């Protein structure tokens, strides 16, 4: 048997739709069509029993190339630094001040969306900006 080749990334979280919409804004992803048989996501939600309502949401790459992100509600909160995180890239091919400026511009775009700037790492050539999403999940702008 050959290998799997298809993967998605799942986030444990408190508010799946809110977090999914945040990541849509970060990555240029979109909310997928509602499940089959439903006109809108709200229609789908209303069909769910109360305890299952808002228990999951997803976002997808509109070109179909990048992996789907799936957000599932869990009862427990976040208690340790995540051991898995996303790196999102805006400074590809850039170095020095030009790269730092690109990263800082992206950081400035994401903060109003609810992201938190942790620190700016810059050694004169390379740079990286660790941030937190709206539920405290670490990610890096690099």
């Amino acid at each position, binding site marked *: 048997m050959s*290998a799997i080749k298809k993967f998605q990334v799942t*986030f444990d979280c408190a508010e799946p739709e809110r977090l999914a919409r945040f990541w849509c804004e970060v*990555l240029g992803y979109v909310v997928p069509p509602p499940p089959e048989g439903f006109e809108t996501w709200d229609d789908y939600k209303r069909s769910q029993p109360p305890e299952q309502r808002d228990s999951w949401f997803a976002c997808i790459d509109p070109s179909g190339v990048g992996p789907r992100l799936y957000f599932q509600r869990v009862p427990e909160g976040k208690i340790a630094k995540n051991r898995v995180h996303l790196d999102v890239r805006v400074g590809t091919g850039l170095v020095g001040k030009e790269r730092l400026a690109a990263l800082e511009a992206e950081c400035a775009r994401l903060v109003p969306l609810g992201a938190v700037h942790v620190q700016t790492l810059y050694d004169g050539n390379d740079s990286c900006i660790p941030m937190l999403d709206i539920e405290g999940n670490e990610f890096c702008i690099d």
Partner: protein
Amino acid sequence: MTSRFTELAVDCHDPERLAAFWCEVLDFKVIDRSEGKVEIGCWVPTVEDVRARQMPPTLLFIQVPEGKSVKNRLHLDVSPIDGSTEDEVTRLLGLGATKTDVGQSSDRNWVVMADPEGNEFCVLRTLAPQN
């Protein structure tokens, strides 16, 4: 303006071992190595490609001093493409994965497993053509 999801970074003790495991799982290849880091992917990203379009992210294994202390809050879901979920689980057990319990109920149609360093992942329903 937007960002690209370019890498999924995984903290670990032994980047080479985990990279080898996940290469076998996903049919990825090692595309870069540096001190304490191994990167695997199904392609080698270029600046032009990343700028031009969405891309499948690579996996980047980074050596860290601390161990894993709690269930990961992010995990990979993988989908078999040419065999049953059950057969894929058997293959992954042979590669060093284990079955694990995160409180899922037994009637689920996916299987929760852990990689050789205990990172949880799920094997979902197969995407193989059905006869």
